[in-house]
């Protein structure tokens, strides 16, 4: 019995001590300020130094939380219980968040730095006039490949190269229906947002003819496999590809000319926000060229901030693989919100393709 009591007391004392330490650390640097801002962002999607800098400049204390999928993020915001002031969803999620009335309009007068954003990234189909969202990062879907492990004539300027017989059992695909079905549609010259059963079946048939080349349909494991030269070709996002190229210089990345997906992660202010003024301050802060450049440098995704481009490494900004030119971008398409019915059909076709493997 004495042991039990002693252990209990010891645990309580340890907890109390840890509590004090954590409290001290949290209040450090922003003592006395009651102004707080809660940010909900993807994991590893901001340079932590920028948060410190923002706290120093504005005196607002930032609590920063992370999520790993658009859907999970939206569920938590929809359900309430936590007051997020900033979230960073992708474009199709912004559309459905607008539909569900989860967002607060952004007052453009409070974000003068918006002029730094390249015009191509503003006023897009998912949010006309940027009423609710401000660009954060963008990227494309493309092919990352290892020239040493494949035959020379393959450059992946066309999706058709994926069907090359020499790639038998060497191709990895991301496990995501929009990306794979979209690739199938693009490869036969259609939009990746079609709502047409015939075209979808055509794309699926085309994809099924790809099955001999497909080694696996997987997720984040692609990165280590490509980096360690254990895989030859993979369909993936440009940001992920940038990471791989950073770690393994032999790799290369291409976005086929027939067209592909371009995605945007944008900052929004959810309805749950309790500090709308602070949220605007943060958005404006992130649009500052210097901060945007520092963040792009840290995260590795492409920045939409034209003024920041001048501050980035020339090699990075002139790399058309990750910063495609205006003409190249014309070919790229944004995912539209398909609606439940068509999203279900895309998933079914993807499943059909997956079942045809082997």
């Amino acid at each position, binding site marked *: 019995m004495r042991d039990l009591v002693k252990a209990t007391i010891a645990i309580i004392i340890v907890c109390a001590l840890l509590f004090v330490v954590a409290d001290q650390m949290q209040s450090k640097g922003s003592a006395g300020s009651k102004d707080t801002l809660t940010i909900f962002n993807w994991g590893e999607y901001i340079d932590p130094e920028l948060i410190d800098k923002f706290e120093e400049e504005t005196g607002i204390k930032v609590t920063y939380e992370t999520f790993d999928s658009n859907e999970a993020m939206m569920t938590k915001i929809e359900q309430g*219980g936590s007051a997020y002031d900033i979230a960073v969803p992708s474009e199709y999620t912004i559309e459905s968040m607008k539909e569900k009335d989860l967002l607060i309009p952004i007052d453009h007068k409070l974000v003068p730095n918006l002029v730094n954003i390249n015009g191509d990234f503003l006023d897009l189909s998912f949010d006309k006039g940027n009423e609710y969202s401000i660009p954060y990062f963008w990227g494309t879907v493309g092919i990352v490949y290892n020239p040493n492990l494949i035959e020379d004539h393959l450059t992946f300027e066309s999706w058709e190269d994926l069907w090359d017989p020499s790639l038998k059992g060497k191709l990895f695909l991301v496990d995501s229906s929009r990306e794979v079905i979209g690739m199938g549609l693009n490869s036969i010259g259609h939009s990746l947002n079609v709502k047409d059963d015939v075209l979808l079946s055509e794309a699926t048939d085309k994809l099924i003819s790809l099955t001999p080349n497909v080694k696996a349909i997987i997720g984040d494991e692609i990165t280590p496999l490509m980096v360690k030269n254990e895989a030859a070709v993979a369909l993936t996002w440009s940001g992920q590809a940038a990471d791989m190229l950073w770690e393994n210089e032999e790799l290369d990345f291409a976005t086929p000319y027939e067209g592909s997906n371009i995605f945007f992660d944008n900052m929004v202010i959810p309805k749950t926000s309790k500090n709308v003024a602070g949220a605007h301050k943060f958005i404006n802060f992130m649009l500052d060229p210097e901060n945007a450049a520092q963040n792009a440098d840290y995260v590795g995704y492409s920045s939409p901030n034209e003024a920041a481009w001048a501050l980035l490494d020339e090699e990075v900004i002139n790399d058309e693989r990750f910063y495609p030119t205006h003409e190249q971008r014309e070919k790229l398409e944004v995912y539209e919100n398909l609606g439940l019915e068509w999203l279900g059909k895309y998933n079914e076709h993807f499943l059909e393709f997956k079942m045809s493997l082997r």
Partner: protein
Amino acid sequence: MKKLSAASKAYLVLIFVILYAPIFYLIFYSFNSGGNMNNFESFTLEHYKAVFADSRLIVILINTVIVALLSGLIATVIGTLGAIGIVSIKDKKMRNTLLSLNNVLIVSPDVVIGASFLILFTMVGVKLGFASVLVSHVAFSVPIVVLMVLPKLLEMNTSLLDAARDLGATKRDVLTRVILPYIAPGIFAGFFMALTYSLDDFAVTFFVTGNGFSTLSVEIYSMARAGISLTVNAISGLVFAVTLIIVIGYYFISKRTKSNAAEGQR
């Protein structure tokens, strides 16, 4: 104990190597200056420095430990009393029903528990954060504690209780001087099980974190989207060290209780 044959020894070693290899591999590369897990360049502590420089990460680490300790403690108290309660029920049918209900909670998927907690908390109007995480961790730990304490209670000889009562012990004395000391090993085991469950739970915790309060499992999960960076290795190394300390602590506690018991017999 019979001596193990060479073959079974080799098998045992193999199993342990397989179990521990990934962890040591991970920790090994947390000292790599190369910045990735491909080849080891040279020894460095920079990833550990990066962890300690990021005060947000440290706060999350501390939060994780606090939640684990407190939820373990509370769950142990509730679970122990619950187990005693279940055993004291005379009606066999009732007792089995309660035990089955307890087991259902253990096997039900974490995702379901997490989602239902999220709905419950938002319906009642509880702000997500420390309290919601603590409550849900206590909730999924209680059935485990019950299960760990129960065997000790069942193996206890009931004549021990009768003897105590005959000697004039009150109900309270019976509980604090006979039952609790006897089942103490089970209680400790329950506490440590609850502790580890709380430390590594992702599915439930993800739903109920909020307002700046997060735990390590949730944080690492979202960090991993950008690929496992060596900072993740460093944190994992730290957590492994903490776990090791806890296990060693547990070892000494259980050794002491044993020697205490031996002394008592003299």
